[in-house]
């Protein structure tokens, strides 16, 4: 059996990136993801990699753009306010079809908000953030082990589709420790050589230009439409979620990340009381996995979306359920974490309301 080590989510994220071949990290300190930078600062010099503390998140993401353009596997990590600043650069990276991984260890907002865990950046991650028609793949691990696996996979997805991939965690996941093993992930994708990278022509090929500016609207539209065809492929083949006790469920909870785990505890307690509750846990937030919702929407009495926000993912849940069942919401925000008891009470109210 694979040797396990006990690691914080943030540390594990950093180590997984290094194991995935990332040798460049550009970042700016912000709580609660500071351990990522600290880990990189210690480890990168030992393995010939680069850790650079930039003067701002804006600079950091543009360093990522430069390094990604030069063909490297590159990571930046931040937390909510920092990701807002990076959004400009993310749009350029998407518009230039460059691969990179961005981590957002989400904290409460808006504004400076607070440093406690939150999920209120769902819209920012899945619906935009930066300007223009673009998407990035957004992966939401719920455990330190899954963080490790998804970070490794994120680099492959980024390279394979030539686009930014975001890892979205929260302060709780970043700060908690769990046993993890590192050897279990194997890429299923064959990655092409980065012949487009700006590595210098060596006078052996035509020059490479990395750019997102197009002179005519026709040209720009054509490129964006092509990029959306790629997005269609991703929606088709990469949307992913976990189902838990859904088969006989009257109510299915939709929750991602750490809150999915809190919900599982609530589900166990509900089942002890005879309430049939299940869980759909989206693993990819974009693309959002509609299939399990479609599958169960005619079987269940209702869905309950649980989030650490005022209700953001619920919009995608509603789109997926498409009016075939009611979708209710329970959430806490500002850094407050819904407890299993609160969720259970909501479930009991929902069932009670029916009786």
């Amino acid at each position, binding site marked *: 059996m694979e040797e396990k080590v006990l690691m914080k989510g943030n540390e594990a994220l950093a180590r997984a990136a290094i194991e995935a071949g990332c040798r460049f990290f550009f970042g700016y300190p912000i709580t609660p993801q500071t351990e990522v930078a600290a880990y990189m600062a210690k480890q990168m010099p030992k393995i010939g990699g680069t850790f650079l503390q930039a003067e701002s998140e804006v*600079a950091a993401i543009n*360093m990522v753009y*430069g*390094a990604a353009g*030069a063909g490297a596997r590159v990571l930046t990590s931040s937390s909510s306010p920092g990701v807002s600043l990076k959004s400009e650069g993310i749009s350029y990276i998407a518009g230039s079809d460059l691969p990179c991984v961005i981590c957002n260890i989400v904290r409460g907002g808006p504004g400076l908000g607070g440093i406690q865990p939150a999920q209120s950046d769902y819209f920012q991650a899945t619906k935009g953030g930066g300007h223009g028609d673009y998407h990035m793949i957004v992966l939401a691990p719920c455990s330190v082990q899954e963080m490790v696996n998804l970070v490794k996979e994120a680099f492959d997805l980024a390279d394979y589709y030539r686009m930014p991939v975001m890892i979205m965690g929260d302060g709780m996941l970043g700060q908690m420790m769990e046993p993890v093993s590192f050897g279990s992930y194997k890429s299923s994708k064959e990655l092409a050589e980065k012949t487009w990278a700006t*590595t*210098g022509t060596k006078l052996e090929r035509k020059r490479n230009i990395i750019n997102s500016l197009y002179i005519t609207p026709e040209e720009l539209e054509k490129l964006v439409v092509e990029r959306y065809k790629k997005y269609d492929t991703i929606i088709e083949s990469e949307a992913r979620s976990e189902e838990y006790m859904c088969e006989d469920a009257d109510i299915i909870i939709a929750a991602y990340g750490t809150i999915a785990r809190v919900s599982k505890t609530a589900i166990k307690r509900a089942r002890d009381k005879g309430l049939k509750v299940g869980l759909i846990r989206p693993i990819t937030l974009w693309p959002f996995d509609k299939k399990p919702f479609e599958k169960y929407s005619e079987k269940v009495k209702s869905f309950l979306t649980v989030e650490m926000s005022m209700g953001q993912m619920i919009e995608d849940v509603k789109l997926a359920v498409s009016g075939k069942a009611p979708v209710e919401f329970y959430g806490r925000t500002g850094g407050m974490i819904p407890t299993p008891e609160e969720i259970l009470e909501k479930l009991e109210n929902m069932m009670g309301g029916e009786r």
Partner: protein
Amino acid sequence: MATFKRPHSLTDITLHYCPGCNHGIVHRLVAETIDELGIEGTTVGVAPVGCAVFAYNYFECDMQEAAHGRAPAVATGIKRVNPDNVVFTYQGDGDLAAIGTAETVHAAARGENITVIFINNAIYGMTGGQMAPTTLPGQVTQTSPYGRDVQTQGYPLKICEMLSTLDGVALAERCAVNNIKNITETKKAIKKAFQNQIDKKGFSIIEVLSTCPTNWGLSPVEALKWLEENMIPYYPLGVYKDKDGDK
């Protein structure tokens, strides 16, 4: 016998700059330098947002387009990945000295081993003649219609003077391309700035005072005269820092 021809590192694409604009001269000097140092195959350029936004079309080497002001950060990323590549940015005054001041100052402070070509024409050309951080006191622009009033609009940034205080800077030199003598000096400075990078000396910046006949509302010849009479006195030419040199 020497013949006048297009430098190999300049593509065979007609430049879009207005007649009388100095961008063309500086492009040529950069390209000649790349040719003479034999670094075309290892050079990666970073184009700015501003009138030179299409610089990526003109240099016969790998190029990346940067967001407004971010060229030094982008160059940092490129350089860190392939330290043996020669990485240069080509930026205007709005890009380098307003929206990208932080990126410029910190790349310089880190002693990032890159070359920065900085075109200072005291105005925003791309958006049609607004006040730049380098617009002279009293100068009329679209957004300083009564002349730049230092009481409310502050003073121009003297980039070479500022950056010369930083330990990471290997070379900070201000030039102009208003006459043959100065063009020769500028060429030398640009070449030195690239050579510094090859020699791993750190951050080099060459500021080139330039004309903008279109937005200054002056003929190309009048514009050169304006530059000589107004810009050079405010922005004296010369070497502000040369770590290993005479100064």
